[in-house]
């Protein structure tokens, strides 16, 4: 009886290939939830709280129907609102207001966090080599992807539920809240699918995240272009647009929710189909061999910085160039979008006529460009920290390269790179506007100048990141939070009637609203000086601290 010593699995059922491919998924999901137990709940709360604060502020800001009608009219009269916030369907209720004003930001945060979560538990695990350790245990081929998608999906759904619950709690209509929460959650699920695909395509987690983030950017632009032109169908092509097309609180078009649900399923199916086409740790695009010797140009730490930064910088420049051209072209037509009721004509007149509306539109564009573009400054700064934690700074600093020279090579991208991104965007914004309005020589310098006026505020964001890197390197990633806080203050501070002192924290609050308003050099000089001081402190601190 005991003679049989061969090890046979105790179970009688033969595991089906499918079950085997998913073996260990439960454990991996638990591991992912354990690793993200702080960050995911915090983000879900941030999204829900942001929307709830908007909903509760609405009652205080617009207490009676007359004021709500005024809001409806002014939003309809000013197409620049539609760039950032999308179309407004119901500004008579707190819920409708929230869905309009906070729909995009809720979808953005949910989608990006969901996408980063997928990458974090799939491609990044392969990047770090941890996947090999896990895969050598009883873990099926599809288990890591399934775990990543499930975790990000749980986050998206939880965020939607929390969002719906919280805005209902502050008095929004329950049905509309569910529709809005579902729209946001489904947008998160779409980007869960997007990241599941980019994790198969890209070789590094950074690339996978960049691809997913850029996808959001492109779809956002598509929506913005559709909502500020007569090509409304463009907006229907964009999952970011679907969040609004549900018309939560106004019509509650439930069928629209089928679009993101189908998109999410198709994307996930694509990821599962792509996965077996590649080896663990490899990408679908095979790497090419490099040069056996370096070109004569690769001899300084600046040259290395260029190699490290050029991909991201070119990506930002192309993206911002397209954005500039697109919105420049759209800007000259925005006045026509305003209806021709007597009321609208009166409001139009108040804003300075069609010309005034176009200038207001351009000034919202430059503000938006600056806020998003400052993220490049943060990204370029974080590259230094990434190099440091990856232990790639040591080999450089143990050659003839001093710390400040190494820092300088990166700082060039933080400061001049940001300027290049903004300048290309401004040049094409001016060109697009000039061409479509038929006066390139007259309009281009005005619009280009108005865009460049944003640069000092962006430098302040970059300077803050450099300061963190020098002074508290472990907290360098908090630069994202800093940039996000500035953006949120600028975008939602005025509507939430935050005190002026709080609004002034954001550098973007100090930039003159060109070409809409008067030019004033003083705030720009102050912002530049602030940025210079932040960078200087960061540099001094880096000289004094330990590396690694």
């Amino acid at each position, binding site marked *: 009886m005991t003679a049989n010593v061969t090890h046979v699995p105790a179970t009688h059922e033969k595991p089906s290939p499918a079950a085997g491919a998913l073996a260990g998924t439960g454990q991996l999901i638990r591991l992912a939830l354990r690793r993200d137990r702080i960050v995911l709940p915090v983000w879900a709360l941030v999204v829900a709280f942001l929307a709830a604060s908007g909903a509760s502020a609405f009652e205080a800001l617009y207490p009676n129907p007359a004021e709500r009608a005024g809001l409806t009219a002014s939003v309809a009269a000013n197409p620049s609102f539609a760039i950032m916030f999308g179309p407004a369907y119901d500004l008579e209720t707190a819920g409708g207001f929230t869905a309009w004003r906070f729909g995009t930001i809720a979808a953005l945060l949910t989608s990006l966090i969901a996408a980063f979560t997928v990458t974090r538990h799939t491609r990044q695990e392969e990047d770090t080599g941890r996947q090999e350790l896990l895969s050598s245990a009883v873990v099926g081929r599809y288990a890591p992807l399934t775990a990543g998608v499930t975790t990000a999906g749980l986050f998206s759904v939880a965020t939607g539920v929390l969002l719906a619950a919280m805005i209902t709690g502050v008095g929004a209509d329950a049905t509309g809240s569910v529709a809005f929460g579902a729209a946001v959650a489904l947008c998160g699920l779409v980007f869960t699918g997007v990241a599941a695909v980019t994790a198969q395509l890209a*070789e*590094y987690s950074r690339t996978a995240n960049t691809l997913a983030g850029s996808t959001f950017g492109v779809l956002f632009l598509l929506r913005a272009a559709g909502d500020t032109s007569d090509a409304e169908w463009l907006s229907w092509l964009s999952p970011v647009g679907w969040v609004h097309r549900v018309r939560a609180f106004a019509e509650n078009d439930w069928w629209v929710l089928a679009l993101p649900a189908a998109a999410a399923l198709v994307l996930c199916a694509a990821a599962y189909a792509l996965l077996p086409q590649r080896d663990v740790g490899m990408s679908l695009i095979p*790497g090419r*061999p*490099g*040069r*056996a*010797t*370096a070109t004569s140009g*690769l*001899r*300084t*730490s600046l*040259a*290395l910085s260029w*190699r*490290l930064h050029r*991909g991201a910088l070119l990506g930002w420049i192309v993206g911002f160039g397209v954005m500039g051209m697109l919105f420049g072209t759209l800007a000259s037509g925005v006045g026509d979008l305003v209806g021709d009721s007597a009321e609208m004509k009166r409001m139009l007149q108040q804003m300075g006529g069609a010309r005034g509306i176009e200038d207001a539109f351009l000034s919202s564009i430059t503000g938006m460009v600056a806020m998003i573009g400052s993220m490049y400054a943060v990204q370029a700064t974080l590259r230094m920290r990434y190099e440091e934690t*990856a*232990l*790639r700074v*040591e*080999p*450089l*600093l*143990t*050659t*003839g*390269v*001093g*710390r400040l*020279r190494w820092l300088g090579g990166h700082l060039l991208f933080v400061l001049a790179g940001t300027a290049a991104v903004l300048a290309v965007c401004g040049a094409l914004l001016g060109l697009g506007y000039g061409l479509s309005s038929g006066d390139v020589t007259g309009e281009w310098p005005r619009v280009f100048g108005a865009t460049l006026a944003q640069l000092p505020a962006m430098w302040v964001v970059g300077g803050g990141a450099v300061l963190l890197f020098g002074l508290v390197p472990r907290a360098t990633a908090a630069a994202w939070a800093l940039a996000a806080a500035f953006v949120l203050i600028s975008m939602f501070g005025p509507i939430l009637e935050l005190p002026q002192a709080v609004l002034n924290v954001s550098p973007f609050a100090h930039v003159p609203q060109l070409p809409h308003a008067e030019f004033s050099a003083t705030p720009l000089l102050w912002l530049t000086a602030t940025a210079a001081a932040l960078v200087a402190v960061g540099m001094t601190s880096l000289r*004094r*601290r*330990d*590396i*690694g």
Partner: protein
Amino acid sequence: MTHNAVSSPSSGATTHEAIGVAGLRKTFGRTTALDGLDLHVETGEVHGFLGPNGSGKSTTIRVLLGLLHADSGDVHLLHGDPWRQAATLHRRLAYVPGDVNLWPNLSGGEVIDLLGRLRGGLDKRRRGELIERFELDPTKKGRTYSKGNRQKVALVAALASDVELLILDEPTSGLDPLMEAAFQETIREVRGEGRTVLLSSHILAEVEALCDRVSIIRAGRTVETGTLDDLRHLTRTSISAELAGHPNGLASLPHVHDLRVDGNTVHFDVDTDSLDEALRRLTDIGVRSLTSTPPTLEELFLRHYTDELPGAEAERAEQAARAETAGREEKTRTAP
């Protein structure tokens, strides 16, 4: 020799000293990484730097490279201050980290050239030789190299540079035996050229083959410094012998320890210095079988690595005794 001006008079740094560390302390928050460490490396020598994991070897090296700021103590590197003159001194040294990370989008060849140029120049012929010797494919991108091959990239970059001092932090931990041999050959050449090497390593055969002197550190302090011979003399050889007659007079020999006599069989430890004398006494009596266990480097290091020396020694003695008892029954007789 303008950089001499910086060396502090208190450390007694000689002109022959490439690295001089005295009383070095470094703490990270509440953990003390280095607790009064001393390290002296003469110019032109290959100096082994040994210690258990977490004993502070890499921290010391990172202080020497000016990456970490010492809390207190004197640190001299090539007669300069590694913190203040980092970039200047670094032109004269090359470093191979224990954990080599390469830029994913740069090929190995590009990294070798870049690091060499940043150090102020690379010997092209030497670069080619080393790439061939280490069988490295320089066209692969950083990400696609294995651990051993990443290490080869860093090694080629360091060894092809014309520098006075090489600081190597466990440089061969990922290399196969063939490459290990190539590494040892290269280090011998480097020493022949009169360059100085600080070699942190766990591979004892490598240390034995290459190092003129070694320093052993533990818990952030230096516990032993000297040539390997110096250190080996501090150990004892274990002898078990079955003799033709009764073992008389062995106990009176100096340097014989833990003598146990069991009929005509003896077991004892003898200081390696006095081994010759003890053996002569044994052959005088007549040896019928003999087992001698030489001091191994492992033993040497284990002695220094283990936390509680007396206790650990007793335990090892006990183990040895047990092994001997077990072994006796199977022992084959050898004719003297």
